[in-house]
């Protein structure tokens, strides 16, 4: 079995209102000086009943393009790992 972790984030060129609000809240918690930027994204776990890594990569990539991300505003990346 394989497990994919898919990360979806707003593109750097797109303003992230959630990230900005979170950043301001963290600043009010006295992390004023340390924080430069906060971006909020999504993590999607997908368990796959297959062992062919190459095929899985292709499939997850397709899923990202078709549904999991919106290419107009978001970037995606993913990792694949063996699980029991």
């Amino acid at each position, binding site marked *: 079995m394989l497990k994919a972790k898919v990360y979806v984030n*707003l593109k750097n*060129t*797109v*303003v*992230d*209102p*959630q990230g900005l*609000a979170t950043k301001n809240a963290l600043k009010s918690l006295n992390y004023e000086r340390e924080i430069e930027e906060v971006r909020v994204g999504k993590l999607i776990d997908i368990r796959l009943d297959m062992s062919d890594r190459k095929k899985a990569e292709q499939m997850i990539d397709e899923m990202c393009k078709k*549904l*999991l991300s*919106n290419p*107009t*505003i978001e970037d995606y990346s993913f990792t694949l790992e063996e699980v029991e």
Partner: protein
Amino acid sequence: MEFLRFGVVVFPGSNCDHDCFYVLNNVLKQDVKYIWHKEIEVRDVDCIVLPGGFSYGDYLRTGAIARFSPIMQGVIDFANKGGLVIGICNGFQILLEAGLLPGAMLRNKNVHFICKHVHIKLLNKNTPFTNLYKKDEVLKIPIAHNEGNYYIDEKGLKTLKENNQIVFQYCANPNGAADNIAGIINKEGNVLGMMPHPERSSEKELGSQDGLFIFKSIVEWVK
């Protein structure tokens, strides 16, 4: 043609479907039917309404799951053949996800759900949806959304402007939308998406009738 045939698509989580049905049927006296999202084909309608609401709980992204409902292929085919489609609020978000309109929706700039009457300015009255308004008319019409912060890249915005595709602009930007955009139409001129709710401003009792002319314009256009 005596009556126009409207089809209001119902997704799980749609909540303005009944309002749209009521305005079209009871106020405008047109022929209306609901189209369940599991149907695969659009039949016997002149205009499709994608209503507001929270289809599929807004999971993943607004409109992202609804876009893959069985009915959406039918809606896309209908639109590609020149059929009239209007997406209101969540319906607009679904049209963006389906690629029938360009751009995408982000969270409101203030990260709040905004529910209030706003003023929007008409930029293009030469459409099937706006032909009964006066040029540059300002409408009072409610918005109710969490993701109405319209995004499009600079090149896309230029194209929208060049083709007169921006139909409505907010007079005062409530949500951070690019170029104050409240509603756009496709290049072909048969698919309109708008965040404000015309079905909630179609009777005097609701404080504004400015939205009614959207639906009246459609009837006028097809007749």
